[in-house]
């Protein structure tokens, strides 16, 4: 049982305010002191939308200077909408965007400088890096996630396997788990940012650098993926599976182990409550590695910057961050919050641990092109259209052309 919190009280207040605004919209509009602040975001998950709306209506109820409204812009359309909006000067006042895209948008010159405006000293360094370009802060991390290894406990027990910690062990285990109708392992390998996100942990685990894929480590990572495909433990269909598809395969029992993120946990629990699964660190080659994901807030320069900042200050306060993170299945970008965010027996704790090994992508304005080269490389290997050596060399040539 929960006692009535300030949030619940505000919720009621927000509802009555909304009713008032609807009934008396003429007076509300006539009031010059109230300014509108618009936000674009791309979360299609209903619980995410509801949580964000909640924080927004709480904020609207807490003061009378600004009215914040949020619009959902689909992820697939986000870049397009923002590019077009930038050209036509028709942008919102604030956006919540995917962290690897931050540098590109910042390069467009549409974001306001937030240096010194927020205290981010407790935030994970990787998250701050993702919104910092040339020493200037262009955003504030919303929340983070990273990838870990999910496994089907029953299948593991039936096969008599232990949780693997190294690549060699992993290969043995997934081979033992693979049957006629079950693939041992799956991770999204789509030829886009999503696939790159899932491939980078393997690359980084060898100690290789993102921009140095044609190295011993780079080729080793690609060769490992090739082995997963050739031994039949992973389906080539992974190149068409989004992370959500991979999760669906996992909860349907078609896949025994998967690489995925914590945001899947709420869905998994509601869709397949009886499934016996657990999480572990992604097995390593020479070091543990994972890829840092998540979103950042950014304020549009020339928009209603004051209003956006007021909301941002509200939304990044501890109470709101905790609420949002719990509803999202995310981990706070604020390390002090993250460390005490979950109960001791929560499966999320593994992700907090994995975060220590997680690295950020970029930041680089040309990141989309680098990511494209990397995702092409592992797709070529998976489909057998190139050897790991050829794929690595080709990707390196593209990356060198971009980095210069």
């Amino acid at each position: 049982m929960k006692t009535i919190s300030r949030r619940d009280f505000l919720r009621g207040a927000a509802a009555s305010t909304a009713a008032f605004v609807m009934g008396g919209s003429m007076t509300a509009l006539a009031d010059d002191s109230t300014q509108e602040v618009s936000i674009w975001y791309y979360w299609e998950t209903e619980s995410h939308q509801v949580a964000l709306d909640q924080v927004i209506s709480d904020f609207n109820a807490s003061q009378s200077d600004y009215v914040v409204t949020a619009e959902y812009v689909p992820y697939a359309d986000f870049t397009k909408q923002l590019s077009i909006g930038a050209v036509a000067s028709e942008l919102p006042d604030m956006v919540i965007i995917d962290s690897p895209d931050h540098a590109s948008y910042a390069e467009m010159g549409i974001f306001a400088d937030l240096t010194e405006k927020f205290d981010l000293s407790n935030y994970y360094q990787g998250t701050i890096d993702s919104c910092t370009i040339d020493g200037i802060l262009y955003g504030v991390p919303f929340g983070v996630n990273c990838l870990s290894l999910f496994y089907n406990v029953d299948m593991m027990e039936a096969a008599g396997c232990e949780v693997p910690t190294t690549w060699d062990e992993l290969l043995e285990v997934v081979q033992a788990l693979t049957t006629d109708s079950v693939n041992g392992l799956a991770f999204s390998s789509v030829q886009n940012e999503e696939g790159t996100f899932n491939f980078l942990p393997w690359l980084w685990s060898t100690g290789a650098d993102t921009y140095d894929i044609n190295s011993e480590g780079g080729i080793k990572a690609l060769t490992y993926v090739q082995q997963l495909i050739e031994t039949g433990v992973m389906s080539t269909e992974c190149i068409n599976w989004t992370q959500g598809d991979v999760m669906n395969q996992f909860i349907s029992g078609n896949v025994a182990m998967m690489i995925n993120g914590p945001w899947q946990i709420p869905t998994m629990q509601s869709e397949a409550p009886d499934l016996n699964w657990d999480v572990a660190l992604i097995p390593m080659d020479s070091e543990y590695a994972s890829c840092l994901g998540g979103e950042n807030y950014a304020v549009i320069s020339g928009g209603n910057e004051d209003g956006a900042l007021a909301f941002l200050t509200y939304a990044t306060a501890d109470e709101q961050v905790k609420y949002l993170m719990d509803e999202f299945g995310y981990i706070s970008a604020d390390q002090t919050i993250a460390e005490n965010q979950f109960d001791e027996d929560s499966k999320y704790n593994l992700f907090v641990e994995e975060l220590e090994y997680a690295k950020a992508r970029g930041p680089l304005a040309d990141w989309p092109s680098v990511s494209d080269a990397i995702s092409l490389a592992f797709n070529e290997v998976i489909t057998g259209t190139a050897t790991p050596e050829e794929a690595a060399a080709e990707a390196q040539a593209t990356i060198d052309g971009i980095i210069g």
Partner: protein
Amino acid sequence: MGEGKPLSKKKNILFCVISIVLLVILLFPLFWILVTSLKTEQEIFQNPPTLFPHILNLASYAAQIETGDFNMFRSFANSLVISTGATLIAVVLAVPASYAIAKYHFKGRNAMLLGFLVTQMLPVSVLLTPMFIMMKNLGLYNTWGAAILADATIGIPFSVLILKNYFSSIPKELEEAAYIDGCNRFTAFLRILIPIAKPGVVVCAIFSFLYAWGDLAYGMTFIIDQKKRPMTAGIFNFMGQYGTKWSYLTAFAVVSIIPVALIFIFMQKYIVSGMTSGAVKG
């Protein structure tokens, strides 16, 4: 060809059987959408697939009524307004244009015909930015008007090219007879030619409507307000960064098809009667 003549009983039955087989094969994907929408997310991914749902799951349909900001009925009304508006513009502009191109050898006629062809040749993605700026300058950004004007550009050239053939198949004598009866060019066009070309006009209207109905790019790009967006935009509520919610998506597809299918089946009767009345025979 056996048009007009009734078939023998044997042939009639044979043809009915063949047509049902064709129907089953060609509409299988639709059946599959329906079946998938009635399964749980877990069963959808079962290997091997199940032909009929083992557990009947109607939750996906219940969820269509209200998901977040997106309201099924409101978005249906939005789509209806947008498609109807676009169809009206397309038909009103395209019918006289196709008549002129078919019947008058005016200067620049070929260039104009080529123009109509060209205007529908660019992929939508590159039209978006300049069109967006225009809509913004017209004060139509984030309104139905933007989608209506944009969607009409799909229907117009299509209708012109299709209707042109109808008008050219109408014998000159008919028009001349109308002039003798005291019609001028405009009244002859309105009273004689349009009724004759009615089946073509109806087909063009339907196609324009369906193009606008199926449009996603314009509606999504020019209208940012969820409350004004067309139905197609709803697809993105189930398809996003973290994967596709198949049961919801297919349920959405089924629900969105039903009303259009009803409208269409009703119109089909109308088209057929228009066609078989065979005005061209005159």
